């Protein structure tokens, strides 16, 4: 199920921002990967469920994780909480994507330790802005 997309980095370039994308919807996962690429992030790994996201985050130590909230099994919120609880992964910047758009949903996402939250459907421009801001090390 895992689908790793690695783009070779030209020698001498600054080390690229590594992004982990997790969404169970193939079309949306691809869309998020395109937006992440538009934001200038070239090293992206994408997975289709929460368990794989957590495993990849622990093994690969990405800079940014873009997680869908409603995934079967381990949800994006669960992954977020697990990453924050482990000192080895606590520093990963996390952007949550969710179809829940109420203020409760946002509050739950931020309480789980997310740095930013985007409601579906998100504009590509907005997603690109968020990823750029997170890769620059600032909350958007």
């Amino acid at each position, binding site marked *: 199920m895992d689908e790793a997309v690695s783009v070779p980095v030209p020698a001498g370039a600054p080390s690229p921002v590594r992004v982990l994308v997790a969404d169970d919807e193939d*079309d949306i996962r691809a*869309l998020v990967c395109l937006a992440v690429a538009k934001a200038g992030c070239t090293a992206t790994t994408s997975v289709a469920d929460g368990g794989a996201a957590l495993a990849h985050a622990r093994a690969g130590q990405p800079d940014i994780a873009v997680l869908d909230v409603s995934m079967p099994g381990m949800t994006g919120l669960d992954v977020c909480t697990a990453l924050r609880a482990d000192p080895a992964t606590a520093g990963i910047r996390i952007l949550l994507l969710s179809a829940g758009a109420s203020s409760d949903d946002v509050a739950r996402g931020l309480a789980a330790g997310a740095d930013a939250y985007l409601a579906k*459907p998100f504009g590509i421009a907005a997603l690109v802005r968020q990823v750029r801001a997170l890769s620059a090390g600032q909350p958007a």
Partner: protein
Amino acid sequence: MTTIDPRPAPVRAVRVPRPRAGSPDPRDAELDRLRKENAALLAQERTRADELDVATRMLAARAQTMTSVIDAVTEQSIIGTDRDGVIRVWNPGAEKMLGLPRSEVVRQRSIVDFHLAEELDAQAETCGSAPGLAALVHAAHAHGSDVRDWTYVAADGQQRTVSVAVTPRTDDRGVHAGWNFVGTDMTEARATERMKDQFVSLISHELRTPLTSILGYLELVLEDEQPLTDEQRKYLTTVERNADRLLRLVGDLLFTAQVDAGRFSLEPHDVDLAGVVRAAEETARVAAATAGVRLVVDLPASGLVVPGDAVRLGQACDNLVSNAVKFTPAGGTVTLSLRSAWAAADGTVSAEGRPGASPVAQLAVTDTGMGIPTGEQGKLFTRFFRSSTAQRAAVPGVGLGLAITKAITTAHGGTLDLVSAEGAGTTFTLTLPLAAA
């Protein structure tokens, strides 16, 4: 009960000496008087006995009427208890709901036996009362009556969600004698409500996901570096506009469900209404130009700040303006006018401040459209209601906008009114309390 023997009282035997022959005996007269007196007493006693008989029968008939009424209630449980909660009245509705006959319950069981202990404990904690019966009747004791959902546990252990009206009962001298519990089984109704809630949020999620794909990829195509032909751009813009419309509909349905479930919360901040009105005008500008409708905006020089949720207020304002544009034929005008005013305690609003009046902001959205028939104006804020004029003119919509606008207004402590004449136009007036200075 005292009983009265209707038989004639025995006449006392009076031993009288024999009178001498030939002379009238005075004892005969005395005897005659006594006989008459006796007959009168007897008659009086008979009348009283008859009266008592009638009264007894009337009372029995009345009790019979009450019992038969209570017994006829088979879909509601009627349970009466004494002050300690011991059951004294148990109607067929209670038998049916809780699965026990009257003979096994009356004077033997307590009302508390049929409640969920955890629920009573939780209620006791919430209202700070003693556990058990005290928790059950706490609100009814304080307010005279109380209606709320409780879980009844039937004889077979099955749980029912029951809306129970609790009232205190008094005896014929007005002394508190116990409690009445009239229950309606809401198990199915509540389950349906929950299912509707889950259904709406599932649908909302399931529709948002494909819409995310549609809108996202459209955005990529429309902003691609390779230019599209004008025709392609026009087609894709149409797709985008309709996907947006679908998205708004999903949002409106979800919002309506949240209002229903009481899960609609506002995030109040200071909101400048003038900015909200300007944004609504901007949003409606293209549609108005296309429809040949002139938009006029009249704003106060300084803004008007109300405490509120900027997103929701924007939605309310957008709804009013887009409605006005939709219902106005080409050549017409839609006017958005915002002003500060004073609302008196009786709800009347005037431009001048008066003692006791509080400052409000008033937004009037006036159109020169087809108007709303007088008979339909009261139903206008009802969900899914569409006016006959809207249907005749085939104006698109599902009838959620005004219901949502009304809910948002109410949540802000404001009012939404309308004045309309068929064929002449409509004015919606949104009145909101201003931020305390």
